[in-house]
């Protein structure tokens, strides 16, 4: 596996930080080196949230991503802010329910996933992040979906069996959109 440098970004409350944490926990579960670095402070309150997640077979030096292998954006401001970070040939995942605009990048692989709509169809728009995560895992070999599922109780402090089941459904739905 090559070193994966993933930026997740969106509104505060869209589960951006949890999405990144799930990747980090799952990576650690698989014996990889991982770092997770969030944006923090007042900008998160009602504003944008983002996190940088790195998974590697080698020890990780900088936890800050200047060239991302993957960028996941859940809203328009995040697309504009983070698409420049993507390396040429990198993967750009866009939440097409909320982002009607196109990316300006033509040298990357762009996939539009109606994550929020799928989550609403499942009855809970908070799981849009899990739909996105499912899609991401179907497109790449960052971590195994099972490792992510095993990490639910670590990343979600107050999860319940019902919520976990919904999260799994959301991930599977995301995966099915790709396959």
């Amino acid at each position, binding site marked *: 596996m090559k070193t994966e440098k993933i930026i997740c970004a969106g509104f505060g409350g869209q589960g951006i930080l949890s999405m990144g944490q799930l990747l980090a926990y799952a990576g650690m579960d698989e014996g990889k*080196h991982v770092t997770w670095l969030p944006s923090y402070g007042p900008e998160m309150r009602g504003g944008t949230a983002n996190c940088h997640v790195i998974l590697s077979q080698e020890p990780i*030096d900088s936890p800050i991503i200047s060239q991302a292998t993957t960028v996941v954006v859940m809203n328009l401001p995040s697309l504009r802010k983070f698409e420049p970070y993507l390396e040429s040939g990198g993967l750009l995942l866009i939440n097409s329910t909320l982002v009607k605009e196109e990316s300006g990048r033509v040298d990357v692989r762009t996939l539009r996933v109606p994550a929020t709509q799928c989550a609403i169809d499942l009855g809970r728009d908070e799981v849009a992040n899990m739909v996105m995560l499912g899609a991401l895992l179907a497109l790449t070999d960052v971590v195994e979906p099972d490792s992510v599922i095993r990490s639910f109780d670590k990343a979600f402090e107050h999860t319940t069996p019902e919520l976990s089941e919904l999260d799994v459904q959301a991930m599977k739905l995301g995966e099915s959109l790709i396959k």
Partner: protein
Amino acid sequence: MAKVLMKGNEAIALAAIKAGCRYYFGYPITPQTELLEYMASELPKVGGVFVQAESEVAAINMVYGAAAAGGRVMTTTSSPGYALMQEGISYIAAAETPCVIVNISRGGPGLGNIQPAQSDYFQNTRGGGSGDYRLLIFAPASLQETVDLVQESFTLAQKYRMVVLISADGMLGQMMEPVDIKEVDSPEDEEKQWALTATEGKRPPRAIYSLYLDPVELEKANERLQANYEKVSKLEERYELLQMDDAQLVIVTYGSVSRIVKSAISLLAGEGIKVGLIRPISLWPFPKKAFEQIPDSAKGLLTVELSRGQMVDDVRIAAKGALPVHFYGRCGGMIPSPREIADEVKRILRGDKS
């Protein structure tokens, strides 16, 4: 304990608790607040005491009281709060009472911002309190190193009866990384022959203070402190060296930004440019010994910091004028990319910048 993925601030708190810290006094300030919150929730579970003080001024003076009373005590804060603690730190240093302080620094001066910065180097190493005193200061670069140093700090604070400061920043405080936090054998502290425990009629009263109206006595007290600092400076210099063989340039950098420098060094290696690294882990004592390892191939030194060059003087002193000392830094929460640092190295090697 197996590796767990933890946020830096929480990992520091857990490491301290596992190292036997039972008294914590603090005040909320970003970006260290999770540490305070973790202590509030976890310390009482092990029979410890958490007090949210009315200010950092009060917090450090509570630490002074608890340390004088023989407690294994800690406080944590961030730059402006650390500034408020300077008076109390001077008293604690003068009284030779052990404690551990963590400064998760942020951008300054003034209120600045809450992003990662290293502009507390002066405040950390030179201090703002009155008098001739020193702190033993460690600046870790990874969360594993952070938790290991936090735990060792409690031992060293007791051993040398001095303040041990962990200097980190918002990047280390906020990021998550796997850590293995050891269970330190519950330190059965030896009877502290100096601690204020009340006489119980078994010994003469003890007094801990820093007032010496007689200059002869005050000078003697200073000499005792300095003898201790001398010992610490001989024994506790710590540093990491990387790729020093045939290095054309050696970068001196510490803490969070050293990780970015390492990425830059890898980039440069890919372009056939050999750059070495000296990473001070102890900021005081400053690791002068590391500079004896600089190879003849090196044309200069480059100090990289998240400040406007506060460490440069120490690097110059350690280099003893043998090599030119260059500086590259960003501040105010701006963080250089590995490419920016690599470009700076190339400029220096080309001679574009003196």
